[in-house]
């Protein structure tokens, strides 16, 4: 009688997404910038995105486990702050690529590297402008059954199997093909 955990917050254009909005399959990740598993998943997702191109939409939402990861919340708010200046994915990538040195200094130097308006960025971090946003992502994840990070959803259903590159891309490919078939079915 186990129910499958289903994404409770639908993906909208307000989400951070890569790939076409109407791609045949969507991979949602609930992630933590300080989580080593997410760090391992980062290049894998990139590889799968490259392989699938326009057949995949990738969405990232925040799920910082702050008790275990003291810098995860700051990192999440930094990515959102960068996002408000149009550089969410650039910051997202740099945070994962510099996971080992996460912290206040790193996020500021990344903000500089990305040519963000530094004053606004620092202000947004200091006033915790994106605290609520991150919390909303987190609680949405909890209510959808996210049980740890990375928490993946494929076609709105929680994905608990292996996310090694081959398995993940073959599952996503199958889901994408299924979707195109369904679309071709009249009526």
């Amino acid at each position, binding site marked *: 009688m186990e129910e499958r955990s289903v994404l409770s917050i639908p993906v909208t254009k307000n989400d951070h997404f890569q790939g076409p909005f109407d791609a045949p399959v969507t991979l949602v990740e609930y992630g933590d910038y300080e989580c080593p598993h997410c760090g391992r998943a980062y290049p894998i997702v990139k590889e799968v995105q490259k392989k699938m191109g326009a057949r995949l939409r990738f969405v990232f939402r925040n799920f910082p486990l*702050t008790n275990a990861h003291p810098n995860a919340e700051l990192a999440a708010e930094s990515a959102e702050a960068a996002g408000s200046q149009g550089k969410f994915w650039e910051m997202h990538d740099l945070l994962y690529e510099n996971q080992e040195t996460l912290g206040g200094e790193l996020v500021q130097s990344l903000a500089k590297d990305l040519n963000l308006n530094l004053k606004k960025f620092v202000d947004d971090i200091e006033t915790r402008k994106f605290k609520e946003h991150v919390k909303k992502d987190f609680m949405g994840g*909890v*209510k959808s*059954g996210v*049980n*740890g990070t990375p928490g993946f959803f494929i076609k709105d259903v929680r994905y608990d199997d292996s996310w090694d590159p081959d398995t993940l891309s073959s599952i996503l490919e199958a889901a994408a093909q299924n979707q195109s078939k369904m679309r071709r079915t009249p009526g």
Partner: protein
Amino acid sequence: MTALKVGATAPEFTLPSTPDQKVSLSEFRGRPVVLVFYPADWSPVCGDQLGLYTELKDEFAKFNAEILGISVDGSWCHLEFAKDRRYPFPLLSDFEPKGATAKAYGVYREKEGISERALFVLDREGIVRWSFVSPVGINPGADGILKALEQLNK
């Protein structure tokens, strides 16, 4: 072994929470209680699961709910584990007689000598209102617990 059904009175227990302190279920009468049976301290899934509940401390507090972790590990082991992970809730030791509480709740795995990964939400009177037995290797998350706590308030 079948887990205790919804509607059943949760069996009373008194278990060590530290090497020199004990906790009884009846102490929490008047508040919702979430019992988190898990197979073992230090195993990766348990860690993530309890870490998630730690993150949700404020959410559980909204319901005035008490979280109690229970495994067959000894209290010295619990002590180090809780300290290392900074868990804000007690970890109870179902150590002697081994697994007696897990057995009373129908969630003991005789063959391995550990408890199932099982959740019980008890209402203010100590009646089981929701339960869930997860595959041992899968973290059940918190959505079911939160839904059950919301239901209690209706």
